[in-house]
């Protein structure tokens, strides 16, 4: 790869990191949505992997990624598509992403939804699930019995 190509690829990843998920205060790169990036000449092809296939934010994210890429000098054509060859899983989320969601009051399981939930406010495990279906497809709702706070927890698709 030439120096110019490396610079362009770095610029592309910087742009991708600037795109936020419309429903979570987190970059799509930290959320682990970017499967791969291919650059050839002035053409870039980005493959994304959805957390939830029916997520209403998918079209918004695709649009944001595409316009951000086309704004880069050196990019003439940008294609953005969702790929299903390997499903999204929690281990795709970065440490920084987890920290950002936690500071937003959203509890994030380490590996699996089936793990015991922890209250993001007081750290108690004495919590009760109110509903598996929260305000977005990727969130479930809980009540902490220790500090009496309601909270939300990130809900990944179930284990295969």
């Amino acid at each position: 790869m030439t120096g110019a190509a490396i610079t362009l690829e770095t610029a592309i990843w910087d742009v991708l990191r600037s795109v936020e998920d419309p429903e979570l205060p987190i970059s799509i790169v930290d959320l682990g949505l970017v499967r791969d990036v291919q650059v050839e000449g002035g053409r870039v092809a980005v493959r994304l992997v959805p957390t939830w296939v029916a997520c209403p934010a998918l079209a918004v994210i695709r649009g944001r990624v595409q316009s951000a890429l086309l704004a880069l000098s050196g990019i003439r054509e940008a294609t953005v598509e969702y790929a299903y060859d390997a499903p999204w899983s929690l281990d795709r989320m970065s440490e920084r992403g987890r920290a950002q969601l936690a500071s937003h009051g959203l509890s994030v399981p380490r590996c699996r939804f089936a793990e015991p939930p922890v209250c993001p406010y007081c750290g108690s495990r004495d919590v009760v699930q109110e509903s598996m279906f929260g305000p977005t497809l990727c969130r479930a709702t809980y009540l902490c019995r220790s500090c009496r706070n309601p909270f939300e927890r990130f809900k990944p698709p179930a284990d295969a």
Partner: protein
Amino acid sequence: MPDARAAIADPAVRAAYREWLLRIADDELVIGHRHSEWTGFGPDIESDVAMSSIAQEELGHGRAWYEQIAADDGGDVDRLAFGRAPREYRHAALLEQENDGWEYSIVRLVLYEAFEVARLRLVAASGHEPAAGLAQTLSREERYHGLFADTWLTRLAGAPDGLERVQAALDRAWPDALGLFESTAADDVLRRAGVLPSSPGALRETWVDTVRPVLEQCGLAVPPSAGAREGGRRGVHTAAFEPLLVQLTEVWKSDPEARW
């Protein structure tokens, strides 16, 4: 098993495969619409949100399957979903029936989710990408629907007059549920070509093995396995479908060329 992708080069097999994917997409679209009718009317706020989320997911899954078909045909996704005549839809009767009470909707959800798991497993095992990968992805999402349905079934059947009401709903839903497994010439073509490593009959056995313990643990009797209501997979639907389709397609038909 012959290589699925090589088999798909044959136009007859390709058409049969399209037919199969269309069944999945249409099942999801139609049940998604029925579930969405609970929005604002659920028995409690959590269940209202849950059924609305399940509706949103099934509609989104339908969209993903239509996209697969459209990518192959070069057609328009919205036109495929909303622009067909009633006889061109391939969903089973179970999905189009009206929500006749919460217990009926829960029974239908239990029966359909178990079917979805079995069917998605079959598509995932077909090796034909990208449908196999999509099926794998979706089966992880469907898991929560099944949990919700089974929990509610137990709760309803345990209520004072619940068992009789749930049993009546089950008896009503059962012939329609058996219609999910209706076989057409497309199934034979796909099995001979090795695209799908199973038949509707075998799928039905897997399904009965899954739902029987769930129903029996609630004290429900599994209805007789005869008397499937078929026709849906051939485009013959019950009286419930046309009004549903009118409502479902109303906005799109007001301006089919609009970009949303």
